[in-house]
């Protein structure tokens, strides 16, 4: 929520920076034989994601997976936003603005510049044109968590104002009818979502989704949209035991062969559609908000009704930490919690029963 100190970016500096970054981006693309265009459908938005270099291309293809429309023509559909990303190592184009080396966040009337040094990245987004540029020194050094959800703050800026809000939650669905699962780290949110996917339910992701808002959306059925098609999961996660087939039961060498080595957190970065074929879907309705809770003593999982205010208390703070459209997001989440029934899901290590709880809620809910 408090995204650090924001400094003023003078308009003339902003313009010069945009020009320098734009020229560097085009130079980088030409050295790689042009941009690789990815038409990413995120809810009502069509994002033109342009990358160059094999590593960034691979990162994007894995992160957005089935959300990429390979046959889509940008001439036929209006583009909601455009993002260009490149790195120096792959393209040989040096730091486009070497004077910007200190970490910080800078804002002009129309643009936001972010500089990061720990996982180096320079981003410049323009709200009036719904465009952004992202420069990375070395695409092979992108952190695993960044690879799972690349460009998230930039996408929040580009897409957050257009009738949708970012929500820190996962979604599980059956035939397009879904429930939204939310809660802080350790609550069991991701495990529940992935256990459901491993058991044959559909999912829109375990961490971030887009929630419809804006004019008219609150009068209709509440809908969410997938934002990323990846998850991070430990090789010893009980989720693997729910999978039939070659990777069921988590034989670690098989997991490593398929998904690569674990990251610094001991997790595999997986493409959901690859680990759980056919289970990643683009959109669903939301018929309940579910707050998983692993901190209880009950022997079997069960759903306990909670008030809308309690659900909002679980959903809002973690989400508001991530978004810049805070008032809009808060209002949209409150509206959702008030519109659908809300439950605490008391999860246990018996994941099959946890999945049954969620499935019965989706099947039998109002």
């Amino acid at each position, binding site marked *: 929520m408090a995204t650090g100190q924001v400094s003023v970016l003078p308009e003339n500096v902003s313009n010069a920076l945009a020009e320098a970054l734009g020229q560097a981006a085009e130079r980088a693309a030409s050295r790689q034989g042009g941009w690789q265009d990815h038409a990413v459908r995120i809810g009502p938005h069509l994002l033109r994601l342009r990358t160059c270099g094999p590593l960034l291309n691979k990162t994007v293809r894995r992160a957005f997976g089935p959300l990429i429309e390979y046959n889509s023509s940008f001439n036929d559909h209006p583009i909601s936003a455009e993002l260009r990303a490149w790195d120096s190592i792959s393209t040989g184009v040096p730091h486009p603005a070497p004077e910007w080396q200190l970490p910080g966040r800078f804002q002009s009337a129309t643009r936001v510049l972010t500089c990061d040094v720990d996982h180096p990245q320079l981003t410049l987004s323009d709200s009036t044109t719904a465009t952004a540029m992202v420069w990375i020194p070395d695409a092979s050094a992108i952190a695993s968590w960044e690879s799972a959800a690349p460009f998230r703050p930039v996408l929040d800026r580009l897409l957050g104002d257009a009738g949708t809000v970012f929500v820190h939650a996962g979604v599980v669905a059956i035939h397009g009818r879904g429930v939204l699962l939310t809660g802080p780290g350790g609550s069991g949110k991701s495990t529940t979502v992935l256990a459901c996917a491993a058991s044959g339910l559909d999912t829109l992701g375990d961490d971030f989704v887009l929630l419809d808002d804006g004019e008219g959306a609150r009068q209709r059925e509440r809908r969410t949209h997938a934002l990323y098609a990846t998850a991070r999961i430990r090789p010893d996660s009980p989720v693997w035991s729910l999978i039939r087939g070659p990777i069921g039961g988590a034989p670690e060498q098989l997991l490593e062969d398929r998904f690569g080595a674990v990251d610094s957190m001991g997790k595999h970065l997986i493409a959901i559609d690859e680990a759980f074929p056919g289970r990643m879907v683009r959109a669903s309705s939301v018929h309940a908000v579910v707050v998983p809770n692993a901190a209880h003593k009950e022997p079997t999982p069960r759903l306990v009704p909670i008030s809308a205010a309690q659900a909002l*208390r679980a959903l809002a703070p973690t989400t508001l930490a991530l978004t810049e459209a805070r008032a809009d997001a808060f209002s949209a989440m409150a509206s959702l919690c008030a519109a659908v029934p809300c439950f605490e899901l008391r999860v246990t290590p018996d994941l099959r029963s946890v999945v049954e709880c969620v499935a019965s809620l989706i099947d039998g809910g109002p």
Partner: protein
Amino acid sequence: MVGLNDEHPSDADANTAYEANSPRVLGETIDSETLLIDSRTGVYFALNVTGSQIWAAFISQPATIDAVATEFARLYDLAPDVARNDVAATVSAMREHELLREAPAMAVSQTPTRASMPVVDRTYEPSSIERFDDLEDLLLLDPIHDVDPDRGWPTARN
């Protein structure tokens, strides 16, 4: 949880008007209960039904404690001193947490003598504010610059 009944009522000047500390404080009311989030400190607050009503009286325009207490007493058929004590203690707590701020002096003369407050079909219970700081670190974490380079959000750098 901060119970307000055992706090001493504020000695605030009856002519002082207060207003919601927006846009710093974000508030949403559902099922007559309110969640307030202070975007500067990362602390959030849950108000019960009566706390929500008192908060609502300050949202759309500045109000004085007396104006809010008058309406509060009418809604719940309370003795004036009971209503004023509850409202004054709530305002005091909200000011302490910087959820309310003093309105500009010129606003006082334009403040109605009876505040506007939502009607709720509930039995009176004293106002309460629950304060939560469990996600304070998370809320204050800059998702770009303050996160652990290896773990990412929501893990803060050491």
